[in-house]
C-alpha cells in the first residue's frame, strides 16, 4: 500500500517538474521573440510606441496563458492529488 503511494508520488513529482519547466521554457522563448520584435519596431517608428505597448501587454498575457494554466494544474496535482485519493 505504501509502495503504491510512493510510486504515484514519485512519478507525480517528476510530472509536475516537467509541466512547469517545459511551460516556462516555451513562455520565456515566446516573450523573448515578442520583446525583440517590439524593440525593433519601436526603434523604427517611435511615434507608435504607445499603441505597440498596448498590444505587447496583451500578447504577454496570452503567451503566459498556457504556461500558467499548466502551473495551476501542476500545483493542483501537487496538493490535492486525485490520483492518490483514488487509491484510498
Amino acid at each position, binding site marked *: 500500500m505504501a509502495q503504491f503511494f510512493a510510486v504515484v508520488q514519485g512519478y507525480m513529482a517528476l510530472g509536475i517538474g516537467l509541466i512547469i519547466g517545459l511551460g516556462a521554457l516555451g513562455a520565456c522563448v515566446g516573450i523573448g521573440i515578442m520583446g525583440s520584435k517590439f524593440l525593433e519596431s519601436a526603434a523604427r517608428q517611435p511615434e507608435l510606441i504607445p499603441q505597440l505597448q498596448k498590444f505587447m*501587454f*496583451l500578447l*504577454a*498575457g*496570452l503567451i*503566459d*496563458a498556457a504556461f*500558467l*494554466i*499548466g*502551473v*495551476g*494544474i501542476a*500545483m*493542483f496535482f501537487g*496538493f*490535492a492529488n486525485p490520483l492518490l485519493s483514488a487509491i484510498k
Partner: protein
Amino acid sequence: MASGSEITPSEYIAHHLSNLTMKVGEGDFWTINLDSLIMSVIVGVIGLGVFWLAAQRATSGVPGRFQSFVEIMLEFIDNTVKDVFPGDRSFLAPLALTIFVLVFMMNLVDLIPIDFVATLMGALGVHKWKAVPSSDLNVTFAMSFTVFAFIIYFSFKAKGVGGFLHELFTAPFGAHPVLWIPNLAINIIELVAKPVSLGMRLFGNMYAGELIFMLLGLLGMLGGAYTAGSIVLSWGWAVFHILIIILQAFIFMVLSTVYIAMAHEHH
C-alpha cells in the same frame, strides 16, 4: 499560523485552498462554493456601485476628481472597443466595462494577505474560506460561458440562423459536401476553445498567484533568514501581482470584445 499547534505544510495549503461548500442536491456536481458566490456578489456590488454613484452625482459643469476618474475609465474602454469593433457599440462597450470592472475587483481580493482573511473568518466561526472568486474555476467558467452565449447570440443575429449554420459547415475550406465534416470539426474546436481558454487563463493566473503567496508564507515558517527572505519575496511577488491583476482583467475584456466582434463578421 496558530501558535502551539503543529500544522503540516500540506495541511496549511489544503486549508487555505478549500472552498466553503453547500450541497443543494445529490453528488459532487450540485455543491455550491458559498465563499466564491458571496465574495463575488460583495466585490460586484462595490465595484459597480462606484460607477453607479458616479452616474448619480454626474454634473455637466467642470467635473470633480471622482467624475474625472470615471470618465477616464469610460473613455479608455470606449477607445479599446472602438478599435476592435467599428459598428454599433451601445451594447458591447458597457459589457466590456462590466467585465473589466468585475474581473479587476475579483482579482484585487488576492492582494489581501491570506492569513488576514483566514483569521478574520476564523473569528466569525467559518473555517474554510477561499476569498478570491476568480481563483475558483466555477466563477471564471461562468463568466466565459456567458461570453460564449453572447458569441452564439450575436452570430445568429448578424448572420441569421441559416447563414450561421451554412458557415459552420462550409468555412474555412469550401462548400463541397466532402469537406462538411472537417469544416464542422474545425469550427466546433474554434468555438469551444474560446470560452475554455478565456476561463482557464484567468483561473490559472489567479490560482497560481494565490498558491505562490501561500508557498512563500510557508517558507517563512522555517525561521530566521528564511522568514526575512519570505517577507521580501512576498512583497516582491505582490508588486508583480498588481501588474498581473490589471493585465488579466484587461485581457479578459479585450478578448471578449474581439470574440463578439468576430461573431459579427461574415466569411
